[in-house]
């Protein structure tokens, strides 16, 4: 027999699994909805239980009702904690991606095309993404914040690699078309499968974003 909080526990298990994954699994829209619905039902029940007392409920006089109210309250509190922890686990992951320069929205769209990634979230509202619309918004705004923060220092890249480079120039291969970029030595047109000898500092971002592959 299912009990209050069981669904919330499922969310916690999803969060646990998410922690150990590199990519974000599909958003559990259906489950989240079910847990919030449960909270609403519990709230209605509390209101119904309290109605006859007209705001003058005495726990000592009616212990059975007091206990039921406590159980309802604890169940709501539990669900809230599960919901918050689930979403926090995901936003932590998203923030990490943003800092690492991973194009999360692009990645999410790719993953949705993969049949193994298809979960409850994927079949939702036609938008094929493992992120909820709110999460996509969050990523976008967090990215803007980070860019604004980084913009304060033009001579240092806060999200750059912490490894000191061994060579100033490196060989790179282009994995997907990235268009034309400007460097100190003129413009380079990055077309797929071509190879270049470039200054590492000029292309670090493109390597992190997966456009280029470092050779050697």
């Amino acid at each position: 027999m299912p009990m209050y909080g069981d669904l919330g526990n499922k969310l916690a298990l999803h969060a646990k699994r998410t922690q150990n994954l590199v990519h974000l699994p599909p958003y559990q829209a259906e489950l989240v909805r079910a847990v919030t619905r449960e909270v609403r039902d519990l709230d209605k029940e509390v209101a119904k239980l309290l109605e006859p007392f007209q705001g003058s409920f005495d726990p000592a006089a009616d212990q059975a009702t007091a206990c039921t109210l406590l159980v309802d309250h604890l169940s709501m509190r539990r669900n809230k904690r599960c919901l918050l922890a689930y979403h926090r686990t995901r936003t932590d992951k998203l923030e990490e991606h943003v800092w690492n320069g991973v194009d999360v929205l692009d990645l999410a769209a790719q993953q949705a095309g993969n049949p193994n990634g298809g979960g409850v979230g994927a079949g939702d509202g036609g938008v094929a993404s493992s992120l909820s619309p709110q999460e996509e918004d969050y990523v976008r705004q967090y990215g803007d914040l980070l860019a604004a923060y980084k913009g304060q220092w033009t001579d240092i890249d806060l999200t750059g690699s912490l490894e000191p480079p061994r060579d100033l120039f490196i060989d790179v291969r282009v994995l997907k078309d990235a268009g034309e970029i400007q460097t100190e030595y003129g413009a380079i047109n990055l077309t797929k499968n071509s190879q270049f000898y470039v200054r590492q500092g000029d292309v670090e971002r493109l390597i992190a974003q997966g456009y280029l592959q470092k050779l050697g």
Partner: protein
Amino acid sequence: MSYYDVDAILTDAEKIPCTFQLEIPDLGYLDNTPTQPLKAGTKVNLPLWLAEMLVIANTGAADNKTFVTFDLPRALANDVVQALKADPRAVPLRDQSAHFYGLATHMLDLSEEQELGSVLRKTFVTRASEISLHARKVGSVSHKGKGKGEGAAEMGSNLGVGSAGEDFLRGLDEWERSLFRKAHEGAKAGKEWIENIKKN
């Protein structure tokens, strides 16, 4: 322990045996009989997040009764404690509960089992040293190609632990597992760093 800690949340889902002290008409569903009242004296397994507060909360009546009383869960039953006293390393804690220590800590908060606390402390210390030993050994397996004489010796000692070691590692609870992971990563990172220094 943070509010958002997923492991803490999962620990709170562990169930403990409780006994209701009064009849409650609306809570029959906790005992699989939603249409009937929950009778006083009914034994129900409740998750910690629910049981904890019900055990502590005062009914507000003059006799100072609580809504429910609880017993120690199966994972902390006497035979388990006796086995831990005999040899902490021989008990697969995971079979008792995936969050064995978390569950035990909660129970110690709620009850006054003095002996249990000291048994558990000894259990953790004994097992922790065993865990760190295994964590280092696992690391050496992947490096067996390097340094001929040394590698062979390490492999030899690794064989010594053998399947008994595997059984032990399978019996770790979540907390011990994270300890193992950290010890393993620490040893590995240390080794990598030293090798890097040598290279440059």
